[in-house]
């Protein structure tokens, strides 16, 4: 089974809140000094599902990412987990692309790779939490789509996917090739292995520019974006302490509950 996994680098979700800053003028997040971006955790879980499928079915896992300097680290991370190969899609014309353009860029790379049974994406990126790219890739490629997968297995008819719902799961059987977005319920992504790191770190990850995959530059970048970001700011949070007193603990508790209700907290 040939699997393509789309991954993205994001700001490390574990950074202390104090390190998170945005530049409201340029409407961009300011990368925290000394803290490199990491592979999107949901994408690492997509790699995990790909590895489980490969362990059962055999095949090849290819990783794709869109980015500029340092984007190869996300691909290398996936290879250190056990993926076989990977490519970075990088071009100045990609700057400012929105989710539609990103999905178009990735779809063109998938088409260039050619033989694939399954495209996996994380359910969303941990930076903007939009969760759009996977679905749009399916639309672009004209394949079947299942979102929010917690598990998948190969069956005679194609792929059986368990999809997470609020109170359980749905089971779908879809023909391949298919696009599946992977939810965190798939479980913890494995850590890289020692030999995997050696293999990944010593490898040169090929870079594909727009022309390499036949991308139409007018369909990518900020000029092609279908939506504009109007403002970006960190919400100001005010904290103040109010001491609730009472003659007895029960009275204090009652007053506390009333006060919380007044404030709309309960």
């Amino acid at each position, binding site marked *: 089974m040939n699997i393509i996994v789309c991954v993205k680098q994001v700001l490390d979700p574990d950074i202390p809140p104090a390190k998170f800053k945005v530049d409201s003028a340029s409407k961009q997040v300011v990368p925290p000094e000394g803290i490199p971006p990491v592979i999107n955790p949901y994408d690492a879980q997509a790699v995990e599902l790909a590895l489980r499928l490969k362990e059962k079915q055999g095949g090849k896992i290819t990783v794709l990412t869109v980015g500029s300097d340092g984007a190869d680290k996300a691909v290398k991370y996936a290879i250190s987990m056990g993926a076989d190969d990977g490519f970075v899609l990088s071009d100045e014309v990609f700057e400012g692309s929105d989710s539609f353009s990103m999905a178009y860029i990735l779809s063109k790379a998938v088409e260039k790779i050619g033989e694939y049974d399954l495209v996996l994406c994380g359910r969303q990126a941990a930076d903007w939490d939009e969760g759009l790219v996977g679905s749009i890739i399916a639309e672009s490629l004209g394949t079947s789509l299942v979102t929010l997968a917690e598990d998948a297995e190969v069956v005679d008819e194609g792929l059986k996917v368990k999809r997470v719902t609020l109170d359980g799961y749905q089971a779908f059987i879809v023909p391949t090739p298919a696009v599946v977005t992977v939810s965190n319920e798939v479980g913890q992504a494995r850590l890289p292995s020692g030999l995997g790191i*050696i293999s990944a770190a010593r490898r040169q990850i090929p870079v594909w520019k727009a022309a390499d995959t036949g991308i139409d530059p007018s369909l990518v970048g900020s000029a092609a974006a279908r939506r504009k970001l109007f403002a970006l700011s960190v919400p100001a949070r005010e904290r103040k302490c109010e001491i609730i007193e009472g003659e007895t603990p029960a009275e204090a508790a009652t007053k506390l509950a009333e006060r919380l209700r007044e404030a709309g907290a309960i």
Partner: protein
Amino acid sequence: MDFELTEEQVMFRDMARKFAEQEILPTLIQNEREEKFDTRLIKKMGKAGLLAPHLPQEYGGLGLDYITAAVIWEQLCYASIAVTQAATSGPIQPGTNLLDAGSEEQKKKWLPGVCSGDTIFSGAVVEPNAGSDSTRIETMAVRDGNNWVLNGNKIFISNGYEADLILVVAQTDKSKGAKGLASFLVEKDTPGYSATMQLGRISWRGGSEGALRFNDCVIPLENQVSEAGRGLRDALRGIDTARLLLSIGAVGMCQCCLDACIKYGKERVQFGKPLGGHQLVQGTIAEMATKIEAARLLTYRVADLKTRGIRHIKEMSYAKYFATEAALWITAEAVKLHGSFGTFDEYPVGHHYQDAITLTILGGTSNIHQLTIGQQLLEMPAFTG
């Protein structure tokens, strides 16, 4: 001189830190309270490829240089030096020894299992009457036809109780002193061999130490690793690697303490401002950070020499002595900075403080390393008249 870590080293650093967070920290406090080392960790580390970064790939290791190994060990010891040492002691001490001194047949037979974690390997040198002075080893190995017969006792042996395989340094001729010492592989099921756990430690409670007994323990001739006269010298090659672990382990535990102090120093408010705003605290933090950086660089320096096969006796003692004595001071200051909170094991500084004293003893005491440095610089014997 390039002081930047390579991409590969950064990847190993990050992976080792995550491994420690996922596999060591969740059970650390409870295991320390129960003075227990969970040997399942050895297999997990073997599967991750973290057990023997320094041993060649052909025997199941990763074949990495010693700086990269040190980068990995620092991150594991950030969580716990005692647990890391217990888990890795087999590949590190007797593993290095077997690699250097063993026959090809012995290496092929045993090292892959040691690197994967399937075989728990212990190195047995220390005895009740032979600590720093290994020439006083009393365990005897007597040739009897096609066998060796071992009799004697060993103590403070890492994973001694759990070991599947033990590399034992024993005396073949009392009259020859160090020149009579040889080494032998003993499998745990060998009749005449027994082991007990040594409990009641005030330090290193996350690790494991055992006492071994050899009572007419018969092993075949092919189990001899080092011939008479080379037993101690070959064992020291493994101990040299262990010293590197202990030096960088001290750095890891101290870095953890420093990070905890910086965090606490920003959060804890006393006398109207954060602790970190008080100049005495800033002075302590600065002293900690400077010592850590110095210890790390001393250790990287000796790791580089060791990788290149350059003689490094003095440099190893610089690193081991400085890093472990620094750890004693830094961990104590870290506990003091945390006040009474620091004396509880929920805070990371507490268990590092407990372990620091053992660091100054294992792998040669601080006094031994001072003597080694002095002897090297003065070119005068320090251990004998």
